[in-house]
Structures are given as C-alpha cells and as structure tokens.
C-alpha cells in the first residue's frame, strides 16, 4: 500500500517536473537507457575487458561474446534475454551466463560450467558487485532500472544534460548518488560519477569512443565501443571494448533457452578456435 502511495506521489512529482523543464530528467534517463540498453531488437558483440592497477600493469583480461534479445517494442524498459560466453581467461573458457531479465520481477539466471557439463540455475545476486573480477558491475551489463532512482536535472551544457540520480531504496552499497552526462543528440552516457555517502566520488565511468553503427536493415545505432571505469576503493581501472558489434541480425528468442547453455552457438565457439 505504501508503495502504491509512493508511486502516485512520485508520478505527481514527475509530472510537476515535466512541466518545469522542456524535457524531464526522468525522460532523459529513460532515453539514455533506451539508447544504450535497448538499441535494436537484437545485438551481437565481442567484448574485451582489461583490469589495470594504478601503475598501468595488466591484472586481468576477459574476452567474451555477448548476445542480446529485446522483447516487444516501444520506448520503455522491457524484458530482455542476455547470453555471455567467455573465451578468456583459460579457466573461464566455456563458462557462460544466461539471463532472462524481467522488468518488475525476479530475473532468471543460469550458469554453464563446461568442465562439469553442468547447467546451474543461480540465485539473483546483488547487482552492484563485480562482473567477473573487473571494475564493471553486473548492473553496468544489464542496466539500472529507471525506477531505481529519483532523477534531477542539475545542469545543461551545449552538448550535454547533467543529471543527478539518487537511489530510492537504501541498500548496503556505497552508492549514495550518481551524476551522469548525457549527450543531447544521441542520449548516450559520456560520463558517470558515483558518490559515496560522504559526497565523494569513488567510481567514474568515461566513454572513450563511439560509432554510429549500421544494422543489417540499414538502421543506425549510436554505440559506445570503448570506455573506461575506475574505482577508488580497489584502486584499479577497467578498460572495456566491444568489437564486431552487429544489430538486428535476426536472433530468435528461442535461442535463449537451456540449449544455448548445453551447447553454445557453434559459430561462437568456432570463432575462438
């Protein structure tokens, strides 16, 4: 009940905000989510991540293939299916994750351990934890929900909207608020700073390179393909790169079933042999 009242109040607040500005902070964030996490119906890419210490020494490297399928259509967050297959490092080779991301519900997640021919359903975990030992968070991969935060427009420059977002639910995490620079034309995130409870920046994300990638059907999707994330708590930074990005290749939702865990797409394993 309280939740309901809260939502109503929140909605009122939002409509008020929307009147105040031409475009509300919430709308900008939503467009940002759409631009990054909902581009195209499906997407295939090869990811690379490199964790470095302060001196620039390489600590860990990860290479993986990522498949994404988005259900339905529209300009709102929808259910997604994600598949990640690791080819490096050696001891993770063949390990794969399958996630059925459900808006307003609990995600279904599975893990494939090739060594044991094991497919394991795994419990939903804290999304603000390290993704396979990097500075990237699970949340960065699957996306934070629009309704997870209260959004406030704090600045506007020639090219960027600057928005401060505050988590609605208090969790044990260090995240007290974050500020994000959203490119006005593409709605891609150029920079994100995370603040701890003392108001200090402890984590920052920076886009390095972008490209307007042409899908098979001719549509173009502005895409971040190089970025860096730094975390002052670990003192490490992670460089991320996506290669071979393809949109709308025609992935079928049926692909994201137990079978993909049993036998990874042959083209994917072949690509790494």
């Amino acid at each position, binding site marked *: 009940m309280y939740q309901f009242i809260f939502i109503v109040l929140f909605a009122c607040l939002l409509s008020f905000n929307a009147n105040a500005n031409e475009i509300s902070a919430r709308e900008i964030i939503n467009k940002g989510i759409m631009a990054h996490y909902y581009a195209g119906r499906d997407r295939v890419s090869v990811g690379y991540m490199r964790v470095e210490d302060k001196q620039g020494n390489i600590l860990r490297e990860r290479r993986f293939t990522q498949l994404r399928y988005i259900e339905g259509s529209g300009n709102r967050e929808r259910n997604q299916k994600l598949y990640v297959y690791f080819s490096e490092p050696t001891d993770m080779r063949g390990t794969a994750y399958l996630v059925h991301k459900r808006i307003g519900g609990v995600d279904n997640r599975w893990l494939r351990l090739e*060594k044991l021919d094991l497919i394991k359903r795994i419990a939903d975990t804290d999304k603000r934890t390290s993704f396979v030992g990097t500075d990237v968070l699970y949340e960065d991969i699957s996306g934070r929900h629009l309704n997870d935060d209260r959004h406030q427009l704090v600045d506007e*420059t020639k090219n960027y909207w600057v928005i401060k977002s505050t988590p609605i639910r208090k969790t044990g995490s260090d995240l007290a608020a974050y500020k994000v620079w959203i490119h006005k*034309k593409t709605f891609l995130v150029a920079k994100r700073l995370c603040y701890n409870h003392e108001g200090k920046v402890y984590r920052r994300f920076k886009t390095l390179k972008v490209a307007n990638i042409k899908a098979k059907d001719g549509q173009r999707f502005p895409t971040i393909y190089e970025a860096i994330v730094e975390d002052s708590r670990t003192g490490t930074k992670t460089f991320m790169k996506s290669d071979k990005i393809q949109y709308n290749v025609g992935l079928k939702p049926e692909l994201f079933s137990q079978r993909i865990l049993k036998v990874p797409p042959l083209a994917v394993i072949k690509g790494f042999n």
Partner: protein
Amino acid sequence: MTKPLYAQAKDNTEEEAFADTTEIDADIDMSFDNASLERYGKEHQQAKKDKQTTLHGFVEYRVGLLSKDHSQQQSINEVRLQTHTKYFIDNAMFFAFKGDLLHDARLNKSKLELRESYLFMRPHPAIDIKLGRQIVSWGTGDSLYFNDFSPKSWTSSFIGRGDEDAKLPSDALRINAYNNKHHLDLVTNLRFRPDEIPQGERFSGNHKNAENKDDWFDKMTYALRYTYENKDKEYSLYAYRGYWTTPSESVPANRYARLNAYGASVQGNLGKGISNIEIAYYDSVDNVNNKNPLINSSRFRTLVGYEQEVATNFSVGIQALYDRIEKQADQQLYTLRLTKSMLQQTLKLSSFSYYSPTAEDSYTKLNLDYRYNDNWTLYTGANIFSGKKKDTFFGSMQDNSNIFLGLRYHY
C-alpha cells in the same frame, strides 16, 4: 540552471577520490560522422586478425597430509598437466579433446587420463549428437546425485582435487533433441563405469570393495531425461536402466547389482533465491522382494533444496535428503553450503558440509581459492570426517581427515 551539486568534491585530493569535473573531457568525440564508423571499422578489422591459440590447459601440483598418524602421511601428492582443444570439421561438427598427464607420487605411478574425446554433430537443427568420452551431468542437487548415474569420484573430492574431478567421464552416445521449450536428452553408456570410492591403498578404515578403481564393464546402461521449461521453472522427468554405481556386498560376478530408476524434479525462483525438489524411485532388480541384505534395497528418495545470496557476495545453500528404504531404517542427510567471495572475486572461501543424523556421520569440505592473476591460482583447504560408527560412508573415513594445498598455472 542549477549549480552542479557536490561541487565541494573538487577539493578532494586524487588519493581519496576522483575529481568532480563538470566539463566533459575534450577527447570524447560524440560527432558520429562517417569518420567514427571508419575508425570503428578499422579497429574491427584489427580485432579479426588477432589469432586465438587453440591449445589451452593447466599445470598443477597438489599435496595433502592426513591429520592422524599413518604409515604414509600423504593423502595426495601429484602433478597434473591438462590440455584441451576443439577442432571444427565443418560448421556443424567438431571434435573435442581433453587429456590429463598425471604423475601420482603418493601411489608412485604415472598415467594418461582421457577426460574428453568426443565428436559433436548437428545433423538436424533440432538434434545434437555427442559420441565418445564425455562428462555427463544433470539433476538439481548440489553434490547430491539422485537421477544422475554418471560416474563420480568421491576419492577426488575426499583428497582435495579440483571441482571438475568430482565427475568422471563416460564412454557414451548422447542424443539431444530440442523443440522450443521441450528438451529430450538420451545417454547410452557404451560401458558401465561405477563411482570411484576411497580405497585402502590411500586411506585407512573399513573399506568394502577396495578394488573398484578404474573399473569399466562391458555392459550398456541407458539414461533418459525430459525437460520442460516454463517461464521461471524447469520440470524434468528421468529414467535409468543400468547398475548401482556403488558396489553391493555380494554380487561376486560383477559386484554391481542391477538398478532401474525413475525420477522427477522441479527447480525455479522462490523469493529471492532458488529452490529445487527432486524425487527418485530406485528399483533394485536383483534384490527380489528386498530379502537379500547383501544387495542394496529398493528405495524412494526425496531431496529439497534452497539457495540464496543473503548478503553481498555471500550465499547460503541448504539441502535435505530423505531416503525411504525397503526393509531398512530410513536415512536422512542434510547439507549446508556457505560461499563468500572477496577482493573483486579473486578470493573465494567456501564450506560444504554433509551431516546425517541417521548414520551419525558428517563430512565438511573447506576451500580457499585465490586467483593471483589470470594464470596462477592457489587452492587450499581441508576435508574433515567424523562419525560414531566405522561402517558408515563418512564414518569409515574418520581417521582420514586431511589438509591440502595446490598451485595451478593456466596456459
């Protein structure tokens, strides 16, 4: 426009926090002109050229000591070289190989172990075939196998080998058929291979049938699974026709009595965690009317489990097992798994315990895995056994509690 918040963060030194710059760094090119695509295209080409090596594996050394005095104090002392690769014959067919070269200084022998050597074929988009030596796993239990009759190695677990050594390969023909949410999995084992259980040569205690190591029997066994995927649950049915994977006391000819089994399971989200229920009926065919005390009796087995991340990077899993055995007392077993990962998941601490109030015995496995980097991993831990009686599964191992240390280099 509103002034940026947290402007005071600018005063922070670099050591304790990053500077809060309000301007976007000039080096981000968000222009999305043709040049950006060209640049991406060039880098894409570069990525294509990066040739991946095909041979992977590890070299490992493991050593362990028994806690109590024995004539031979070592529980394990071995060096292992593992190599694996896949070779594609065409787009729908590949050959997989995984082999271990092992020198066991504890038992003073060297051997080649073929873990995987199979041909994968996709003759039809909905059918996958695997023929040859392969690891087979299914079922919902965590280290408890109800409907999974593929060979296990309890010895490997008891002396602290890697997780992957808990399963032994089978020589099998496996056919998988898929139809959207339905999945059929048929395994024909060309040779029957029992579980590897602790033996006198490595451990002391009351070990029945100490000579089952590396046994293969020229007898076929069949295992079938059907799975239906619902939105957030998986339902499975199982059937097995073969042999008990652990020996009976009196079947001198083959030592393994015949077994037919039928089972079912369901697994899915429950609250914030995952829960599973699995049942199985074991029909001990050779034990007519369950009158022979020397052959395992027929039984009905029930397993209930639940797992949840209770705090960040800390998860807890519990399982309860109930065996209703014909003409014998019922058996109960509980398991508890605690897992904690730290230091960006490079350090993993875990504990897995089996406790049976009916057999009055227990087994706890403690593990610490530390990934120093992508190549080097350190493993250490302990296997702790206790029991009131010496003739129970874990109780017979009570003088063999041990600690171990391992170092692995991945290439």
